[in-house]
């Protein structure tokens, strides 16, 4: 939702490169976007599209080397996170910016109790004493819907089911009441009925705590249901962004259109033949000088192979990086 105070996080021209033995891989190429206060921003893309790397770059979670942030600016509360001192970053991570990752088993430490892992950020960031932190930890577990929270604090991660573990991850992430929660594929490893529980939990948390959430996923369905705005990534670039209802009903970029066509619906009309996107996603060895989707694009023009399409505004905050975006795909808007 747009708001008067300006964006909470403002990313400008972010470029992240991985140096590998086989040469450079340009994982994030000139990515710019804003995250407004309290909004839920969905980031979709296939594996290798740069969605996770973008978010990890923001808060310095990428190992350098091999990663290298070539350029960009990430403004958060008046300072640039990319030039921030490591100490300052540590204060922000887990404090003002929380995280939830895909696999709760590998992101929780198996040799410490869940209680210890929730108490840790509370003591570190909020400076609570042991008893107060413990009490707060139990409250947090209750908040994320874990029954019998006091007893469960003494349990180890392996004593929880996958869905419960992900709830614990959310409890840790929201422990310091962050302003931003970055959730990287938080439901991908879970079954649909458990996914539904977690989505319901996030809805509640948002209502109660009012933080902004970045939800990274490849599942268009999840995004359609929970987010306010969506960013579509391909080849390390944002190819389209806008309010979720507009992007889904009137996609401006051929990639978004094609992607929506490949997902068979569970409700409504059944399609007989699935649309496909031929070929496969690129690995960018150089900074792209043309549209990275053009080899797979059904609507590609001759100039798509020569020039890099710039962001074209479709309507309001909805834009797409495609030469066809404005002229052909939404003539009503001209």
């Amino acid at each position: 939702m747009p708001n008067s105070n300006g964006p909470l996080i403002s990313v400008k021209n972010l470029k992240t490169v991985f140096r590998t033995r086989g040469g450079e891989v340009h994982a994030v190429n000139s990515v710019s976007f804003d995250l407004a206060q309290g909004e839920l921003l969905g980031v979709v893309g296939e594996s290798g599209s740069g969605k996770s790397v973008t978010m990890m770059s923001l808060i310095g979670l990428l190992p350098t080397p091999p990663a290298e942030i070539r350029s960009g600016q990430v403004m958060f509360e008046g300072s640039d996170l990319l030039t921030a001192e490591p100490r300052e970053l540590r204060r922000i991570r887990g404090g003002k910016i929380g995280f939830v990752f895909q696999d709760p088993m590998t992101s929780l430490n198996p040799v410490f109790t869940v209680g210890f892992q929730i108490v840790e950020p509370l003591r570190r960031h909020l400076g609570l004493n042991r008893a107060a932190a413990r009490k707060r930890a139990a409250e947090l577990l209750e908040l994320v819907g874990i029954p019998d929270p006091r007893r469960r604090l003494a349990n180890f991660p392996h004593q929880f089911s996958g869905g419960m573990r992900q709830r614990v991850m959310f409890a840790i992430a929201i422990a310091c009441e962050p302003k931003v929660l970055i959730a990287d594929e938080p439901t991908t490893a879970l079954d649909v009925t458990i996914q539904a529980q977690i989505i319901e939990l996030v809805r509640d948390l948002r209502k109660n705590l009012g933080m902004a959430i970045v939800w990274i996923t490849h599942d268009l369905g999840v995004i359609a249901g929970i987010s306010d705005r969506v960013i579509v990534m391909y080849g390390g670039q944002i190819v389209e962004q806008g309010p979720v209802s507009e992007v889904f009903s009137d996609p401006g970029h051929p990639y978004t259109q094609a992607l929506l066509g490949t997902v068979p619906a569970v409700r409504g009309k059944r399609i007989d033949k699935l649309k496909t996107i031929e070929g496969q996603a690129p690995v960018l060895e150089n900074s792209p000088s043309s549209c990275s989707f053009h080899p797979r694009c059904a609507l590609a023009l001759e100039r798509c192979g020569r020039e890099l399409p710039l962001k074209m505004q479709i309507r309001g905050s909805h834009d797409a990086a495609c030469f066809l975006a404005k002229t052909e795909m939404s003539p009503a808007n001209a």
Partner: protein
Amino acid sequence: MPHASSRKLKCRRQMLDEAKTPESLVRVERLKVYFPITAGVLRRKVGDVKAVDDVSFEIVRGETLGLVGESGCGKTTVGRALIRLLDATEGSVRIDGEDITEASHSKLHRLRPRMQMIFQDPQASLNPRLTVAGIIGEPIIEHLNLSKHDRLERIYELMDAVGLSREYSNRYPHEFSGGQRQRIGIARALALNPDFVVCDEPIAALDVSIQAQVVNLLEELQDRMGLTYLFISHDLGMVRHIADRVAVMYLGRIVEVAPRDLLYEQPLHPYTEALLSAVPEADPEIEKYRQRIILEGDVPSPENPPEGCNFCSRCPKVMDICRRVEPPVTSTAPGRNVACHLYAASGDAN
């Protein structure tokens, strides 16, 4: 490329030509697969994981039966037991009349070419030390007596069929992307002209845009070669796309089997209903009004399933009887079975 509906039509016409009523290719009766739990130094058996517990169904020649359910519900175990990659604890599996649960090694070797499997992880199911030609050629060497030249011809034919360029025949699996690797796995499964193919989550490890490519390929091959599929998946959208009939599993049992459209439009079993309602749709308009049934808790352990109906611990419509008596399988319409007490008494759908 043939339209899917014309594909089904052709299939049906084929059946009429042969002047046969739909004949079941695979018949599973009261299949049970238990894995023993052992404990102590002597590895004494202390219990069973009832991975598949009394499952019966049929697959008609030329159709695709979708088998859906959440992780741990036993769908992969069913698939493996069907072509005897696992031994059944009880019950029988007949493929074209031949009981494979009791078959001897030599008989099984003779039957293998007719039943094949496509695995979930194309990385793990392909030998990294063999070239593509080696992988696809392996079943041919094992089962057919072809000259080297004929074998290579057959390999090329298969590579064409699955859309792999012949130039790649000397490359190794790691040189391919996930989608291409899955094509290699499909070519290997088809090398011996099988009748029946178990597709175990063939698209789960692939990206969305690649999934559609592989599914379209599977449909095209079914059309061309008259294949019968068991399509195991947790992706309900994809199953609705590819399957003719769908079986829903929960904790080792099939709770509902129905023709695809009936199942998706009018699920009977409360679990099917909850499962379908939990799938998000890539359409914000639908999402706004979607009825969500949020199931409480987690799937119980198959070591120790609840008394009575397996689903009673999470069922929103649970009744007293569900906690005591295992629900019988009721047929509410032709080809439509549901195992739930709600439908047991009346035998009527609504």
